[in-house]
């Protein structure tokens, strides 16, 4: 796959109250960002089981984003702190085994930060484009480049 043709798939788990609202705002404000972002609305960033993030990568996502409210602003008061712990666990496990842990991104984007939402989506997509496709999805398969 040549680099300019690489169109990443990024799964975004966005909390209902902040990051989804920011995505709504980016929408109402007509701020364009790459179509590679595939949003899934969840109630709270703490709704997202770490296994979901791993599963998204395994299913073929090139990266995942978990979006929550800023610390202290969580609609459920402490959900985002719990989510941060889970993300820390996932990223540490990935990094420890030599996977690319930057393919899991944790971002705090509040409901009024539509422009920040678009900016993060743009920057992250660019970053993942540079990194190239993820080989995580080929785990336990015959595909990918690594297997002779």
């Amino acid at each position, binding site marked *: 796959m040549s680099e300019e043709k690489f169109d990443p798939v990024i799964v975004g788990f966005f909390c209902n109250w902040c990051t989804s609202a*920011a995505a709504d705002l980016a929408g109402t404000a007509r701020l364009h960002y790459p179509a590679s972002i595939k949003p899934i609305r969840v109630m709270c960033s703490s709704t997202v089981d770490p296994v979901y993030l791993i*599963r998204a990568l395994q*299913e073929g996502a090139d990266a995942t984003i978990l979006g929550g409210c800023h610390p202290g602003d969580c609609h459920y*008061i402490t959900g985002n702190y*719990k989510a941060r712990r889970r993300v820390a666990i996932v990223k540490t496990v990935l990094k420890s085994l030599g996977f690319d842990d930057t393919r899991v991104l944790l971002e705090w984007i509040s409901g009024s930060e539509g422009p920040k939402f678009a900016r993060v989506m743009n920057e992250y997509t660019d970053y993942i484009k540079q990194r190239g496709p993820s080989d995580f999805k080929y785990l336990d398969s015959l595909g990918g480049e690594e297997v002779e």
Partner: protein
Amino acid sequence: MGKVLIYGTTVASYRAATNFARSGHKVIFLNRGAFLVNKPTQMQQQHPRDIVNGYVKNMLVAVANMTGNIEIYHNSELLGLDGGPGNFKVKFRHKYPTVNVFKCIGCDLCVEKCNAEFKPIPGSIGIYTIPDPEGCVDVCPAKAIQIPKEEEREEKVDVVILSPEYDSQEIDEKYGGNLKNVIHFAKFASLFSGKGVDKRFLKREDGKAPKSIGFFNPAGFEGYLGSYEEHVIIFREAVLMKEMDPNLDVHIFLKEVRLYGHNQLFLFDKAKEKGINVHLIDDIEVKEDGDGVSVNGIHLDLFAVLPGQKIPDDWKDIAHKAGIELENGFAKTRPFTFETTKDGIFAIGEFVKPLGSAESIYHGTAIVPQAEKYLKPPELPQMPEMKFKQEDFNPKVGVFICECAAKGFDIDVDADYVIKKDYLCLHPEEIVKEIKEKGINRVVFGACSPSLRGAMLEMTANKAGVHSSYIENVQLREYASRVGADSKKANAMLRAAIAKARKDVFVEVPTVNTIKNVAIIGGDLAALIAADYLVEKVPLVYIITPEFDEPILATGVKENTLNMSDEELKEWYNTLKDRVLKRAKWIKGEVESIEGSLGNFRISAAGTEIRSGVIIIATGGDVVGDGTHIVSRMNGENLHSALSALYAKRKGIEATYDLMKSYSLLDLYPPNAKKGEGEPLAYVKPRDINKKIATLLGMELDKEGFFFFAEEPLHRVERAGIQFMLFEEPFGGVFVAGLAHRPMSIEEEMEEAGFAAQSAMYLMRDITSPAGKYVSVTNPRKCAGCGICVDACVTGARYVDEEDHIAKVRPAQCVGCGACANVCPSGAAIIKAYSPTGVFEMLKEVVK
């Protein structure tokens, strides 16, 4: 059903309108701004990133849509007011905005065809302004465009509530208002507004990145008022700046640190710890200084001023038209009420005193029981009972595509039915017809955000007999067509929703049968006031206390701060006590044990077993020390107000929080004590019983022994807690009022007691889980009883049953955040609507 007119644009007025409407009264809401969404409340004028305002407004819109009890007029001006309670005639002028925000569906046709101007607003469709509305009326499919004519109206109402807001302030010249690089705090905060707090965005007008910043609020200086909230905002922002860039030189200039009680002081400590310079000053001199400014001799590259609050000139005019009296520029209210000098006219919010958002919300809630004495009994709309088919063994998925959302997309998905319509939200009856005719039992909407019209679409599918568990919403508009996505993304999102819909399982939303009694623990004044509101309305009110506090003690200070003689106060108090005890049941003694939870508490006290749905804690406090009133400034100490008191206490000297009132009206007329002339201190001491009650209920006390309430201890900032932004359930059926919470003035006791009573009233019904279809459940077969979910649950909805060692859910308290499901290693705690089965299906489709 009574009719209430609310005038003004404040957090208190928004909340009051919301509360009256959902209590079952009609509300005429006169918004003073041009649009519901762009007239900022006082705190928003100063701090555009503040979230409280957004929440109260969104809640108002939601309740207005839900109950149909709120009529809103914009650009309103009060013209005159006649009559009395139950029979007011209110004349006002108003002007329609060109677009009715309640009707607008955000389809953008007016932008395309009539050059409408569009401004996005968080949490709403946004604001359209139409240059030539006459020519555009027919363009709008939702008929939301209206001719902006000015109109005079007269409304007949039972009660009038006045809550005008402060004017927005510019920076006074004394504080550098005319200087370059002196910036209004609102402008400073908006540097990061929407974009996030990031070094890249910290820039002065000339494009330079400042290396030093100062913050200032003139509260306490001549003519300027303020509550603690401005200082909370300044400290928060300063800490944020320092966290963003530790090399930044950050200064705070204040007359005194108005951080009060509980956790606010945490901010002061944090600021100190981060190396922020806090200057407590009696005079300020702002001068131009090279490429920046100098403030009291300190060079700053940028100086941000939160300009503070002043009593607006037009309040006099409003008071005059309403025929009420002012006192110190604020509306004069009668002791223990929000009622002004004229019967049936109430004043709330900043019209009464400078206050923060939390207190504004107290006002907007406590007003309801006070005004209800003039109102006919409320009428709540009866919800039609819906019967849903629970098990659908053969999923039949119907996909409804809204062309407005799917503009330009080539929709190609595989489902039992794919139905495309022009504007789904404008043709609900057609959706119902299609669902019924085709026997669709799972619905996927490809439309707009649930925070816009998506919720209404869900209700439409409910009407057709499809339960919410089987409805999926795909935001084709905000997530795809408006952000430049292609058909591929739209189809992937739809396919994911279809896959999930096929796997959706029925979620029964549990309803908890609650006990419709209230138990009040303690004999504080707040206990009596809360009981007074409740005795007429709930079957039984218990007051559990060995004795009631004496009136003077009950006011929280040794000196009577009301304009009442001690005899008058005593008489008022005794009448109140007699009236309450005639109807309420007094359990003479201490609480021994409390079991159960929201809706079903079992309390034993003085050998009696009591059952109640809600508990109000009003244990009061003791006033100790030699002083007659609580002093705010220590003799010879450099620290001011509450801070000095707290620091003194840490050193072992008996001192305390300031009286909350002393930072408001007393700014205008500082008492001698405040000038620091060494008067002896008085101090409010929390009672020992708090410890026992806190243990029994699993609540937390602060260092001094006061209850935390509404200010989440982890949140650490005493402003409107997140709980305020939901309705009552998250409090778990326990409210704290009066001196059990913190030292406070007698008026504040009334506010908190009113808030507790009114919130308890809302809970006197069988409670459907606020989580809705996201309610958490446990699979007992898998649960190992480890209790990780109990630690994760923020509302206390989960507990491990001692009997079978399995985690159980109290559905009345579950808010559906899903933290339990996330942390459960066994997959025993689940949110069925986000079960791994469904999510895995989605992931498979979405990555294609």
